[in-house]
């Protein structure tokens, strides 16, 4: 019987090298692959292109999630929808130390899904006529203005699920799914961390959100911070 299970986060990201393009699931702190992010920080990987809805999250005076990677100068380019989520990104951006590609949140999700689904590009009304449409092809469809958007993929996707099995099947909890399912489809190598790792057959086959075909490596996360009291 095959298994995709790895013993820990550092082992699962062993071949993530400098310059890698990485997608990170999560919205704010919900559904972020916090163990894989910590391992990547420990590993010291640099010159990263980061694709994620936020470049980390701020709670009170502290910043969590991806923020330490930015603070440590490991990220050369960020693609996402909500960069103002952290002060550290703002500081780096204003100092010209990180490149930004701003994408509307729905277009971000759809571009990632398009990559995973073998779609060569698509038209949306979102953003037509606004500064975010600059440089993009525009087309009138049924009398309305649409803009052309390209698929968005990555070398690696780091995703987080609540439960998973050793075939890579994943189940998310509450709003923890967010970008994780689309990102799992869109990367050369998808690495999933889960709170509970079970044997195949334990998860209800009707209630699997991400079929194992999209997941190449899976591990039980070492530690889950909860942040809220």
């Amino acid at each position, binding site marked *: 019987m095959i298994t995709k299970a790895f013993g820990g986060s550092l082992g699962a990201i062993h071949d993530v090298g400098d310059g890698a393009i990485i997608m990170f699931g999560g919205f704010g702190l*919900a559904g972020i692959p916090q163990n894989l992010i910590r391992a990547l920080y420990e590993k010291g990987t640099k010159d990263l292109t980061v694709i994620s809805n936020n470049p980390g999250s701020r709670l009170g005076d502290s910043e969590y999630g991806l923020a330490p990677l930015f603070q440590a100068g490991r990220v050369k380019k960020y693609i996402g*929808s909500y*960069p103002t989520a952290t002060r550290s990104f*703002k500081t780096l951006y204003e100092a010209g130390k990180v490149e930004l590609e*701003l994408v509307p949140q729905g277009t971000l999700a759809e571009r990632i899904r398009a990559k995973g689904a073998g779609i060569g590009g698509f038209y*949306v*009304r979102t953003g037509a006529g606004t500064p975010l449409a600059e440089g993009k092809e525009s087309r009138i469809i049924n009398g309305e203005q649409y803009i052309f958007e390209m698929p968005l993929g990555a070398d690696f996707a780091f995703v987080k699920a609540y439960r998973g099995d050793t075939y890579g099947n994943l189940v*998310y909890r509450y709003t923890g799914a967010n970008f994780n*399912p689309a990102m799992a489809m869109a990367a050369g190598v998808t690495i999933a961390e889960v709170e509970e790792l079970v044997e195949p057959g334990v998860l209800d086959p009707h209630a699997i959100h991400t079929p194992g075909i999209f997941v190449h490596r899976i591990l039980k996360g070492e530690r889950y911070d909860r942040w809220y*009291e």
Partner: protein
Amino acid sequence: MTAGMNEQEMALRAAAEIRDGDCVNLGIGMPTMVLDCIPPDKTVFFHTENGLLGMGGFAPQGTAHPDLVDAGKQPVTYIRGASFFASDLSFAMLRGGHIDLAIMGAYQVSEKGDLANWTAPGMLPSIGGAMDIAAGVKRIVVLMSHTTRDGQPKIVRQLSYPPTGFACVSLIITNLCVIEVTHTGLLLKELAHGVSAGDVIKNTGAGLILPEKS
């Protein structure tokens, strides 16, 4: 009593736009106050674009779960009959015209219903889901102060802030009044207590259609 509506009254007025059974997206900030303004005999499905239809209120102290948040990253609850889903399906709901109503804040609204609510000149820009909502939701209600902190009109002939979407706002609710965006212009529908049509006209940067006297 000071003239005009306070935030609580504005949220209540916005809630009156919601019909029984509606699916409603609430922007971050003041629009989230609408959550607590729904009478118990109405069933409303609040949508949060990070993947929940059937959001309840904010999570009571001690019950917050890091994986259960709204679009403003605040811990929330969910109602019986709710569903959780991924961002791609969530934005299909928005872009595909399935959400009945969105209630959003704004920096500016033009007389044609153009909306500016994502960034200002010189600001580090963030967009989130605002443009997807502007492009896809059937009916958009803007909930905002009538003027900026330094008294400049936010309802204008033409946007000077970067646009979020065009001809997408249906109704504007401010502390001073309720304005409907019609094909012929901005219709001053209701005045807040203690506010005159003159007060509104003075603080508005676009022409207004006054309702016929009854």
